[in-house]
């Protein structure tokens, strides 16, 4: 081991970042993993449902158990994990500027940089959307599953995608009532298994429906919903009033791309994966060859795909730093790609697979 060597710096200790750091460390490469939160794991610890996929994708295992496994492995490997550490700047060349515990500022030279910064939930603007009681579905999920408190008793869920139906079900598991799930599109968006569980519990689903406004003096007391036409315009006379104290928004996520912009990574627009995001090649390298992007920052998908993307980048970075021979890199990369491919099959994976292929094609053109 070379003492003066610059480590690979991984930003974000969620599923993607943890897997990238694990692959680097397993290969013997120096690695530092930074995360702004007090605990690692990203959003895994609020995922209390079982994951899909095959055995090797940890199917049937609950998100928080996968989180525990990854943490145990990173602990066993002795990875340098720096928590409460916010990365606030990147200098090309390659230097990371970090603030620890909101008080101590320092810079660290990086051999390679792996950005696993995740995504941010989208907001939806309507009259009353700033009222206390309106929150993202992920916020409610964090409150119930991580902090064990209920943000409200009667919930309206806006959005029927996976996040919407999974959180609706988990809110019921936590003891809340779900008054309805509404969806602007004419069809439901989530996996059938999750959707059916909510429907079987008696929750009404309304398609082609939007929220018109939230009402209440100091917090949400009711929601007004209405049917919409093919042009997403509310149809007069279809308004319905729901007595709810909480409105959860599950209307998609946007990649958290700020650090990749500072690293001057070329950005592309892929609406089906969340909007603007750094372009990447088949090794998850951005247009800046020293910077990798993995997980939701490279297109919003799921924890299972994020983990495999993290592994791809970790393997390639370890090889690029001289810690893995060509053949091992090729074998490990092919194995990982095979698993990724399998995760992007089926009717739900197809769209994401096609979008990812488009990203790779764009990189080749660039």
């Amino acid at each position: 081991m070379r003492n003066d060597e610059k480590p690979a710096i991984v930003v974000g200790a969620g599923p993607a970042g943890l897997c990238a750091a694990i692959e680097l460390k397993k290969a013997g490469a120096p690695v530092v993993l930074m995360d702004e939160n007090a605990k690692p794991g990203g959003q895994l610890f609020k995922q209390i449902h079982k994951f899909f996929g095959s055995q090797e994708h940890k199917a049937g295992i609950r998100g928080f158990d996968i989180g525990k496994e990854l943490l145990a492995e990173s602990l066993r490997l002795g990875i340098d994990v720096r928590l409460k550490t916010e990365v606030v700047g990147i200098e090309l060349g390659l230097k990371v500027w970090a603030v620890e515990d909101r008080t101590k500022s320092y810079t660290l030279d990086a051999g390679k940089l792996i950005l696993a910064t995740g995504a941010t939930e989208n907001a939806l603007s309507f009259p009353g959307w700033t009222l206390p009681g309106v929150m993202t579905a992920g916020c409610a999920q964090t409150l119930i599953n991580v902090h064990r408190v209920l943000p409200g008793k009667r919930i309206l869920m806006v959005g029927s995608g996976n996040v919407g139906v999974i959180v609706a079900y988990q809110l019921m598991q936590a003891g809340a009532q779900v008054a309805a799930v509404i969806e602007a599109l004419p069809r439901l968006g989530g996996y059938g298994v999750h959707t059916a569980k909510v429907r079987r519990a008696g929750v009404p689903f309304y398609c082609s429906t939007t929220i018109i406004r939230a009402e209440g003096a100091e917090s949400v007391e009711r929601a007004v919903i209405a049917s919409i036409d093919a042009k997403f315009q509310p149809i007069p006379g279809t308004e319905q009033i729901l007595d709810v104290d909480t409105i959860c928004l599950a209307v998609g996520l946007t990649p958290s791309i700020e650090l990749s912009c500072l690293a001057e990574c070329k950005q592309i627009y892929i609406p089906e994966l969340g909007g603007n995001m750094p372009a990447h090649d088949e090794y998850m390298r951005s247009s800046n060859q020293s910077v990798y992007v993995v997980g939701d920052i490279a297109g919003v998908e799921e924890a299972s795909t994020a983990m495999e993307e993290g592994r791809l980048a970790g393997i390639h970075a370890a090889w690029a730093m001289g810690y893995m021979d060509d053949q091992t890199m090729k074998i490990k990369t092919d194995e990982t790609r095979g698993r990724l491919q399998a995760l992007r099959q089926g009717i739900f994976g197809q769209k994401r697979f096609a979008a990812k292929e488009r990203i790779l094609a764009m990189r080749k053109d660039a």
Partner: protein
Amino acid sequence: MSADKIPDSRIARHAVLGDLPVQKDVTIYFEGKPLKAREGEPIMAALVAAGVTVFRYTKKGSPRRMFCGIGRCTDCVMTVDGVPGVRTCVTEVRQGMRVERQQGVGSWSVQAEAGHAQ
């Protein structure tokens, strides 16, 4: 699931997660009133458990609570130990902590300005 069976805001029992783990209590002060919190939890969780619905008012007097819950949006900021603009969703409670509803962008207490805030 009938309306009269709605549980307390603290989730004591859970089918997947099990019973609420035992955790040491700490006391924080919300608007001067003592509130029991669980050690290690963020301020936001303690306030939600206590039924607090308004965390701050904007300068136009519009109420706010929390929105993203993971430190991204800054909707939940309050004045903590005299320091305004503290994200309560990612700031852990501490014994004796003073948490106040913020008005507008808030103001620094004399002690906080002098660097004596905890």
